[in-house]
Structures are given as structure tokens and as C-alpha cells.
């Protein structure tokens, strides 16, 4: 592995663990949440789990690289755009259905 943790107080695995926990919480949320807004929140968690990984890897490499942080900046802006599109779709659903319960939205048969 090209990763070392000598000279750092906190080993990189701690960051990765936080990332993995966030990822699991996000996935769990995607599965059990019924409100579309709750699912949007879970997606943000998933994206931020990846962000933590990227930044942690980027600064803990033998030769630290800036690419991880650049990637993260792109992800943050994309997350905002995604949230905007998602909210717009959810508002539209609310206008049509008067609720945002993803389980009950089924005009079409499965």
C-alpha cells in the first residue's frame, strides 16, 4: 500500500472508518427511509463518506497529492446541484400528490 501513517497522531484508518460508517448509515437510510427528503439526506451522507475518503487518502499518501481535494470540491458542487434537482422533483411530486412518501408513489404497476 502506498499509504503510511508514521508521523501522524491519528492513523488514516480512523478517517476511513468514519467514512465507512457514514456510508453504511447512508445506505441504511436509503433503504428504510420512506420520505423522499429523508432519502435526499441519505444520499448526501453517501457522497460525504466518499469525500472523507478522498481527502484522507490525499493527505496520507507517501507523496501527498492535491487531487483528492480537487475531486472533493467537484463532488461538493455536484452534490449541491443534485440536491437542487432532487428538491425540485420532490416539490413537483408534492404539488401533484400532496405527500412525499416514496413508497406510496405508484401510479404505475410494478
Amino acid at each position, binding site marked *: 500500500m502506498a499509504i503510511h501513517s508514521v508521523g501522524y*497522531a*491519528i492513523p488514516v484508518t480512523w478517517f476511513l472508518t468514519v467514512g465507512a460508517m457514514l456510508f453504511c448509515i447512508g445506505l441504511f437510510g436509503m433503504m428504510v427511509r420512506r420520505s423522499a427528503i429523508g432519502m435526499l439526506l441519505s444520499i448526501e451522507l453517501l457522497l460525504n463518506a466518499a469525500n472523507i475518503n478522498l481527502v484522507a487518502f490525499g493527505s496520507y499518501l507517501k507523496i501527498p497529492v492535491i487531487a483528492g481535494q*480537487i475531486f472533493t*470540491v467537484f463532488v*461538493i*458542487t455536484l452534490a*449541491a*446541484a443534485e*440536491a*437542487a434537482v432532487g*428538491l*425540485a422533483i420532490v*416539490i413537483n411530486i408534492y*404539488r401533484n400528490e400532496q405527500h412525499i412518501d416514496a413508497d406510496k408513489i405508484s401510479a404505475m404497476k410494478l
Partner: protein
Amino acid sequence: MLAKDFLTIGIFALFGIAFIVITLIASWAVRPHRPSDAKLSTYECGEIPIGPAWTQFRVGYYIYAIIFLIFDVEAIFLYPWAAQLLGFKNNHAMMVMGFVDMVIFVAVLSVGLAWAWKKGVLEWK
């Protein structure tokens, strides 16, 4: 080393919490307790509140918020750009190119703003 780092944070956190708790307890101990209708009502910048606080906002508000969110977050690109441009002090060509790139980026954002403006998203009807 690790323990020392966390000790600093721990002491800092302890002081932060203690400060708030002590302030709240002290003010509760010394203040007079004489409630009245006017005092118990919701604080609304001096206005008399109408209806409950948990009302639905107009849809126009959400669209305004979404537009704000986008432009707010896009500004994130300006900071690394500004910091990096100084690094090209001795490379005129790169500096010009970096500047032109950012002008294009802001121009595209402005098109979005112009579109939202003309669509009437920014009007508070």
C-alpha cells in the same frame, strides 16, 4: 502524543460547556420571575405573531432557496483558483489562461442568473 492532543480539545470543550451552564444557572438564580402575556408571546422582532410558526412556506421560497444554493456552492471554485493564480506569477501565459478560464466560468454562471432573473424566479410576488 495522541493523548496530549485530545487533552487540549477535552479541556477546551469542558470550559465551553461549563461557561454556558454556569451562565444559564447564574442568570436563572439572580433574575426576577414575573411572567405576563406580552413576555410569554413568541418573539417576532417586536411584531405581534400571526398564526403558528410551523406553517408552510410558499413554493416560490423553495425555488429562491434552490437558486441560492447553486450559486452559493459554485463560488467554492473561486477560492482555489485565486490561491493558485498567484503561483503563476512568473508564467504570464498560464496566468492569462487561468484568468480566461475563470471568466468563462463566471460567464456561464451569469447566463444562469440572467435566465433565472428573466424567468421571474428572483421576484418576490
